């Protein structure tokens, strides 16, 4: 979870078995009809259906449970198809509209049923961009940022993105049609300690949360830490947590009179 809070994403390589990926390409190629906003998983993905089985894969189900809790609702889903040698990449964007919630977040599941090579235009994402307050494709001017992630992955990979993460489908310069299936989930419970928190005091948690990224400007990178601390406090309920004293220092306004 600390890694997700720092990076804004969680990647699970090849967690979907090959036989399901073969089926997945066919299912996505035929299209997956839209569902009403806010649907329950059990209502729109019947028992035994491809999507339901995808969500029941233990690694996928566990990640979803840890991130948004039990019984999240389906915001919407969409099959993304990038045609061979299409001219343009998507502009860098965050989905939906500007979303500045500091104590809740949606996740977007992205499923890749086939091996994705660099020239197939796998999803571009910018680690650590999820707390930026920008609206949809207003970031389209940014073509490349140092430390960006250009997804190359084996078939059956599932990635979860924080709703605010900057991303975009890259230009497909290959001869192969590329498929990706996205589902956005909304939490239905408070997102506090929904994951295994037995190791909260492990030093690796603090190390993960302290991750900086090459595209951060020096000064704004410090503000990223500030905002990350606030998110971690919201997720853990620990209002004393801090990194390098960033939040504590600027919150210190003693009210006691001197003796």
């Amino acid at each position: 979870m600390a890694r997700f809070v720092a990076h804004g994403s969680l990647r699970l390589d090849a967690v979907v078995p090959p036989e399901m990926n073969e089926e997945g390409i066919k299912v996505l190629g035929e299209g997956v009809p839209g569902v009403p906003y806010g649907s329950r998983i059990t209502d729109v993905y019947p028992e035994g259906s491809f999507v339901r089985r995808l969500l029941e894969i233990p690694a996928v189900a566990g990640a979803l449970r840890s991130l948004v809790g039990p019984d999240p609702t389906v915001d919407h889903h969409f099959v993304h198809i990038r045609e061979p040698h299409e001219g343009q990449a998507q502009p860098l964007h965050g989905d939906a509209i500007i979303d500045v919630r500091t104590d809740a977040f949606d996740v977007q599941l992205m499923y890749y049923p086939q091996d994705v090579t660099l020239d197939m235009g796998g999803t571009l994402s910018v680690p650590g961009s999820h707390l930026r307050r920008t609206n949809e494709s207003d970031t389209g001017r940014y073509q490349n940022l140092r430390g960006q992630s250009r997804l190359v992955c084996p078939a059956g990979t599932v990635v979860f993105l924080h709703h605010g993460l900057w991303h975009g489908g890259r230009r497909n310069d290959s001869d192969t049609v590329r498929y990706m299936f996205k589902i956005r989930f909304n939490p239905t419970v408070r997102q506090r300690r929904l994951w295994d928190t037995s190791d909260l005091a492990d030093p690796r948690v603090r190390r993960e949360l302290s991750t900086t990224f090459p595209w951060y400007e020096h000064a704004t990178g410090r503000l990223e830490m500030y905002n990350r601390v606030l998110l971690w406090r919201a997720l853990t309920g620990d209002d004393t947590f801090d990194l390098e004293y960033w939040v504590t220092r600027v919150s210190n306004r003693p009210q006691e009179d001197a003796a």
Partner: protein
Amino acid sequence: MSTNTSTRQQVLVLYLATSALDSEVVGWSRYDGTARTSPTTGDSDEPPYKSGVHALEDGWRLFQAAQLIPPYPGHEYDVSFLKHEFFFEKVVEVDQ
């Protein structure tokens, strides 16, 4: 024999680590008015220059730099767009 030529603009946008033009490049975009290249989102992991000054040394002309704007009261800790944006151009000749 004379050749008919005209000029086109190539634009380079650099995002730097601080407001100083000689600070490190953290992001970049290119637009090519000659249509000889078609830069797009996510087409490179390596910045074209180490700093803004390195771009000047390679012949790019700076024509716009982001202003330094104080944060709006109450939003001092917000993070949003990249702040240190520099626009460069090269004007190149093309055959008509």
